[in-house]
Each structure stands twice: as structure tokens, then as C-alpha cells.
């Protein structure tokens, strides 16, 4: 392989003016993805960014890579076609809570179970932004939006639980207001061989401002979230004095010394799923970082292996073999 030129984040900026609302969380995700791509040592022409529809899905236009702005909910399916057609490409899906979990929910779960080697960045702002403020499949119950003026009645998805349930091999969560953490998580996703699902808590300043404020503001972040680092103890708190320990089927707060070690590589998705239950407990920190990271063969690799195996066995078929099969007969 030829020497890859060291790329910088700016090499991934297209000449298009970024048109998200001032203060939108999308800006920091764009920057995080550009930095991560630059650091991967992959030639720029080998990146393909695919999106669906929604605010987040304008993303490919701002990236100086190959890209396709698809149709609503279908980015995962389009990206599957790109990756299976050419596994040498690094394929990234940009989607949102409406695009990826509502209209595109089916493609999301199937691309995760197939373990197509692509990076799925789901911008979760718990609202439909581009259509100007309707409740989404992650909007908490009771939320007042334009289509739920008396409060939303729908029970929401927890995106991490959905991904785990679908058999995802890599599941992680980060937030728009912590670029350093986001970079770590995106890097881990980029290095994962297989479908990598990353939920990004992203603030919509116009239609759902402050949705994550109680967890992400600097003043409370260390107390209200916990960064799960593979192989390290589960510690949180401003003074890093608290920990989480697993006790049978429960997770309890303990001292930092007593904290259990987090391991997202275990076969069972059970511990990760248990960790997501903390999202429902007001007094507990919400889990961030890498919740699951396991190895499983990817669909794209298996497809090509199978083509190779069948070709090895039957020999490369020619156009003539295809048409002139042994059951044909000749009329003189």
C-alpha cells in the first residue's frame, strides 16, 4: 500500500456552507467525524457518507468525501449496498431519531443483525427538527410538541437497547457538548470491524432546547453520567469518588474502590442491557461510552468469501457457460 498522506480535519470540509441553526449540536458532531476520519489513515477517496432525511442528514454535503443524501429512513439500506459492493470503502451512516428509529427502524435493526461493517451515527435530539417540532420515537412520554399539544402518549425507544436487542456488535453513546469524549467514542467505532452503532445526544436549540441539560451541563455531567471505559473500573462523580458495582441483577452505587470493572467484550449483551436500565432511574448516572464491543464476521466479508468459495469450487463462469448450459441441443 502506498504511503497515505496525513490528512487533517479541514481536508474533510467541503466547500459548502453549513446550514444548521446557530448553536445546533450537529456542528460539533461534524467536527468530531472530520477529526476522526483524518486520524484513521484511510485515503479520503475511500470514505462514503450516506444519510437519510432530516436535519442531521444534510451531513454528507459538508464532507469532502464520496456521499449520498438518500431518502427518509433508508440510509442503512443504501449503505449496505455500498459496503457489500465494495468492502474496501469506509462507510458511514448519518441518521437521526426519526430517520433511523421511526421510518428507518426496520433497516436499522437488520443492518445491525447482519453486522454490515459500517459506522452508524444516530443524532438523537428527541424531536423532529426539519419538520419543525413533532414528537419522535425517542421523545419522553408527556412531552408537549406541535403534534402532542397535551403531552405525548407514545412510550419511547431507548436506542441503545434497540441496538443491543438487534444484535449489534458495537454500541456506544456520547454527547455533542463533550468533543473529547465524542472523539474517543467515534475513534473506537471507526476501529471496530463490523456495524458500529453510536448514539449521540444532540441538542436541538430551536424545538427541544435543553432536552439533555440535566445530564450534560458541565455542573452536573460528572454526577449524572458515567463514562464506561473498557477494562477500567466504573467510576463517576466530580471527585471520581463513586463507583458502580453489579450485585446479582442490580446495579448499585458504591465507593470508587469497590467499583466493578466494565467489560463490553463479554459474549452476553446482558450486562450492557442492564446498564441501560440506569436511564430510567433518576438517582443514577446514565451510561456513556462503549457499552458493547464484540467480534462477529461481517456480512460484506462473508458475501465476498462466499463468492470466492463458490468460484473456487465451480470455476469462474464465462458468458458462454451462462448461456450454453449442458441441457441445450443442436438443430442442424
Amino acid at each position: 500500500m502506498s504511503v497515505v498522506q496525513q490528512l487533517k480535519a479541514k481536508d474533510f470540509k467541503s466547500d459548502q456552507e453549513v446550514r444548521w441553526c446557530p448553536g445546533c449540536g450537529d456542528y460539533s458532531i461534524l467536527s468530531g467525524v472530520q477529526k476522526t476520519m483524518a486520524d484513521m489513515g484511510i485515503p479520503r477517496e475511500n470514505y462514503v457518507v450516506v444519510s437519510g432525511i432530516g436535519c442531521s442528514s444534510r451531513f454528507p454535503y459538508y464532507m469532502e468525501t464520496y456521499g449520498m443524501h438518500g431518502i427518509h429512513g433508508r440510509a442503512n439500506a443504501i449503505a449496505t449496498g455500498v459496503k457489500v459492493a465494495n468492502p474496501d470503502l469506509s462507510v458511514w451512516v448519518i441518521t437521526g431519531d426519526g430517520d433511523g428509529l421511526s421510518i428507518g427502524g426496520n433497516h436499522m435493526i437488520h443492518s445491525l443483525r447482519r453486522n454490515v461493517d459500517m459506522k452508524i451515527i444516530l443524532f438523537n435530539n428527541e424531536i423532529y427538527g426539519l419538520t419543525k417540532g413533532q414528537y419522535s420515537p425517542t421523545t419522553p412520554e408527556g412531552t408537549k410538541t406541535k403534534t402532542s399539544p397535551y403531552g405525548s402518549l407514545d412510550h419511547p425507544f431507548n436506542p441503545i437497547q434497540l441496538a443491543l436487542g438487534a444484535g449489534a456488535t458495537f454500541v456506544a453513546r456520547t454527547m455533542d457538548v463533550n468533543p473529547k469524549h465524542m472523539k474517543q467514542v467515534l475513534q473506537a467505532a471507526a476501529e471496530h470491524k463490523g456495524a458500529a452503532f453510536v448514539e449521540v445526544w444532540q441538542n436541538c436549540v430551536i424545538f427541544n432546547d435543553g432536552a439533555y441539560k440535566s445530564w450534560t451541563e458541565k455542573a452536573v455531567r460528572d454526577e449524572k453520567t458515567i463514562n464506561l471505559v473498557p477494562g477500567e473500573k466504573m467510576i463517576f462523580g466530580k471527585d471520581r469518588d463513586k463507583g458502580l458495582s453489579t450485585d446479582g441483577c442490580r446495579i448499585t452505587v458504591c465507593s470508587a474502590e469497590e467499583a466493578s470493572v466494565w467489560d463490553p467484550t463479554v459474549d452476553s449483551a446482558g450486562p450492557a442491557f442492564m446498564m441501560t436500565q440506569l436511564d430510567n432511574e433518576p438517582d443514577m448516572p446514565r451510561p456513556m461510552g462503549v457499552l458493547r464491543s464484540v467480534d462477529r464476521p461481517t456480512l460484506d466479508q462473508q458475501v465476498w468469501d462466499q463468492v470466492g468459495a463458490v468460484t473456487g469450487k465451480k470455476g469462474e463462469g464465462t458468458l458462454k457457460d451462462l448461456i450454453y448450459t449442458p441441457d441445450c441441443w443442436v438443430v442442424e
Partner: protein
Amino acid sequence: MSSEELITQDDVTIRFAGDSGDGMQLTGTQFTATTAKVGNDLATFPDFPAEIRAPAGTRAGVSGFQIHFSSHDIYTPGDDPNVLVAMNPAALITNYKDLRPGGIILVNTGAFTEADLKKAELDSNPLTDGTLSGFRVVEEDINQRTMEALADTELSKKDKLRCKNFYTLGMIYWLYSRPLEPTLEWLQEKFKNKPELAEANAKVLKAGYNHGELLRLFQGHYEVPKVHDAPAGTYRNIMGNQGLAIGLVAGARLAGLKPFLGSYPITPATDILQHMSLLKNYDVITCQMEDEIAGICTAIGASFAGRLGMTTTSGPGLALKTEAAGLAVITELPLVIVDVQRGGPSTGLPTKVEQSDLLQAMFGRNGDAAVPIVACASPSDAFDCAVEACRIATQYMTPVILLSDNYIANGAEPWKLPDMDALKPFPVEFVTDPEGFTPYRRDEKLARNWAKPGTPGLEHRIGGLEKDAVTGNVSYDPENHQKMTEIRRAKVLGVRESIPTPEVHGAESGDLLVVAWGSTMGATRAAVERLQKDGVAAGHLHLRHIWPLPKGLPEIFARFKKIVVPEMNTGQLALLLQSEYPEFRFLKFDKVMGKPFRARELKAHFEEILEEKS
């Protein structure tokens, strides 16, 4: 007549009918394969219920397979059978009326108990109540004969009885002097790992054949000599879906590309996905996706990545693919969308034939989103049409809809294989030079250039939003949208520069022109030939290209006094022609009964038209 007497016939139609579980489709396909090897021309029409196993013995569960074979060139699976094989009362009662007067009915009396009659909703036994007067009824307890043939075999009674269709096949092989070898070889291969079943079926097949002679059930037997005037060449028996599968693979190859099929199982298109899945050693990738939408979207993604994306479906699936087809239109990516039509609307008649998706193919997308449409006429035409769809898709950077139907999909006929030299490549050239590159730079045909990911310096974005005609960036400019809409339309209309004006078969001018498309071709041609024999100046114009319509049509239309368009819908092509050529009057002739036209009914209708004062 003695049983030894051999009578030569020129043209025979046989219908095998039985319960869904009786193996009639297998019996029919075996008879077809053998008949193809004998050198007859043939056409088949399988007709089966949507249910895999409707309640046994009921009318709803009757499965039929008709084969028309001949010593001369034929176009249809036959109007009325000479022979009906009825494996049970339901099969008999639902089919005997189609038989020609004096035709032979072979009945399996082993399935005519009181209970069997009741399941078929019969109050009296049609074998004894006079229902079948005027036909030559041959009664045989095929169940019993099968059990006797397998008396020494170590199989369960159920497994033994399952062999009964081979007894029937054996009898019909004797009746029409067909060799047993092709089926015996097939059995060896099919039951390679279950030799006891291969042996049992072979034994029963031979028993049926020998008893045909020994039991003197029939008054003599027949031969249908092979076609003598068949054009020299190599032939293969082909079914429509199979022809499409290999045509799509060949078409991609001729474009210098590797095919990618993203699909979802749907009757009657599934065989294409199944067949292409076998062809992995031809650089074929197939992905059975989670739904119709994912099928087309993966194909679009694969085309973006530089393969030739394809998706196969039927009417309801085409409806689901609508939005994504529009994405392929605006991103100007090559894509072949195959629609094997069936009866609609909605789930409609999933296993029956109709041509009612033409206007969906034409207009079924939001926005002004024209796509070229190609329609195949028969199983042997499927290969050429698939190659043609690949040519248009890649040469014009556009999705193409390729229409087939259930009648073509499951029908079989001998296919004269193309000379390899006659398959002209149409290689795609990917752009690699960054100098002056923009995604929507176009050639003289208005096709945009195609740069695939992985090519340095050509990074670009495409998508569903309108793009600037020059820079390829998102554009909401009013003049630009007008311009891009016109370019996309002109590009598709420009396809007509690359397609020939179709030839009129029959009279070049005169009283009646019959314009047909898709699988009505065979019956139309047969009907027009019969009219000509009667001295009528009638011509048949078959349209392979539905959109854009070929050049030169008004000149043809002007040469005839009347124009009629028979269709298995309520006049969709007629509507299109009427709007494109308002100076002519296009008469409609519709049939939406889930069954193909018969040549006889077409001829009768054409005669009525000819008699009417215009």
C-alpha cells in the same frame, strides 16, 4: 384401431390437472423437458393456486399445467387441450369444459370415492352421470396401479402414493411416444442422496409407460414429429424468470460491470432472485433484504459504488420501491427494476397473470420522473430484454423498468441461443480524471459521467435534493430546476435514438393493425396469422419498448384503417398511445380474468371490429 397403431399429429395440447399436492407442476415440467429434447416447438402455461396447499381435493386446490407442442413454430400454450389428465374430481370438473370435443380425458378413478366427490362439491359422479359425453374417457385407478408397481418396495404407503404422478407421466409418455431417458436421468440426479426414491419413481414411470401399451386403454397412440423447419442453431428450454436471471447477469457483463441484486421474495418474481443466487461464480452478488425498499436501496448503493444495481419484484413491491426509484432518477444512477406483473390491485391475484402495472411503471413516482420501460414478450425473449434494460441503464445513467408477467415467468419454450459474437458489449467507462470533473457533466446522450468511490480527487455528493446543473451542489434555483427537469426528460426520450422501429408482422397495410405488448404477443400473432389465412389484411405490431416509444409509429398507424390494442388490463397502453398519438383512434380490448388471451377469442373479437362500421 389397435394399440400398436401410431398416428402422426402435428399439434397437440395436453393439460395436467390435479390437487396441489399431486405434483402436476413437476409432471408438466418433466413432460416439457422431454418434449424439448425430442425437438418439438412448445409453449407451456402453469396455472396454480396462491395457497401452497389449499384443502386437499377441493376445487380451490386444483393445480394445472398446460403444454402445447408441435411440429411447427407455435406462439401460445394452446387454446383448447386435446388431452386432459384429471387426478381427482375437482380437477376434472374445473377443467373438462376447456377440452376440445372428442378429446381424451384420463381420469384417476382411485380418487373418485364418495368423499372425494363431496370435497369437489359434486352431488353425482361425473364419470357416470353423462357429464363427459362427447369426450373419450379413459379410466384408470392410478393409485392402485402405483401401489401394485411398488408392492416389493420398502416405502411407506404415503411415500408410495406420492409416486403416482410418475405413473401418469409414464402413460402420457407412451401415448405421445416420448422417451423415458430424460426423466430417468433427472430422477437419478434429483434423488442422488435418496436412491430408494429415485428407484421407486423410475419403477412407477416405467409401469405407467408399459401399461399404456399393455392395458390397451387408449385407441392407438401418437407421435408428434420434431420441427423440421426450425432455424439451425443451439436451443435450450427456458422459463421466463430463468431467462431474465441470466439476461441480467449477461447484461451486466456486456456493460463491463458486476451485477448486484438487492431483492425481497415476492410471487411471481422470486425465481429470479433464487436463480441469480446460484450464479455466484459469475461475479454475482445477491442480497435478500428485509423488505422491498431495502432491496432497491441496496441496489442503488451498489450502483453508486460501481456495480450494476438490480432489483426484482412484482406489482405490490414496485409500489413500495416508488420513492427509491425516484432517488435513482434524480441521482442518475443506472439501475434495473424488474416487475413480474400479477393480478392486482393490492395483493390481487398473486399467481395469475395481468399487465396492469404499465401505468404504474410509467407514472408511479412523485415529481416528473420518467424512466425507460422495456417489456418482454415470452420466455425466449426475456434474455434479450434483460440485456437491453442493462444497456439503456448504463448508457443513459438511468433506472430502467423491465416488465414481465406471471405467464412469461412460469411459462417455458425452446430458446434459440444467441451466437456469442452477436452479443455486442457496451462497456461503461468510469471517469478517473479530476480535471474539470463535476458529477453532472454529460455526454452527447445527456448521460452524466460516473465516478465511483475509491477514485482519488473525484469525491462528490449526490442525493435526493435537486442539484445545480453545472456544479452538482444543492440548488433551489427556479431556473435550474426547470433546466434539470427538462434534461432528465430529454435524456430518457433520447433513448429512442438507439432503438429500432419495430416491424409489422403480417400485412404491411390494410384493414386492421393489432398493437400488442408483453405476453399478449403470442396469442396476438397466432390470431393475426389466422385472420390473414382468411384473407384479411391484418398486421401485428409488437412493442418491446414502451417508453420511450420507438420512432416511426405514426407512419405505421397511418397505413391501417383500424387499430386495436388487446391488453390484460383495462386499456393502459391504449391510453398512452391515445395521448401520444391523438390523431389516431386506438380501440381497446381488455381481459382481466387472470388468464392469458386465447388466439381464438382474439380472432373472434378482431372479426367483430372488422365488421363494425367505423
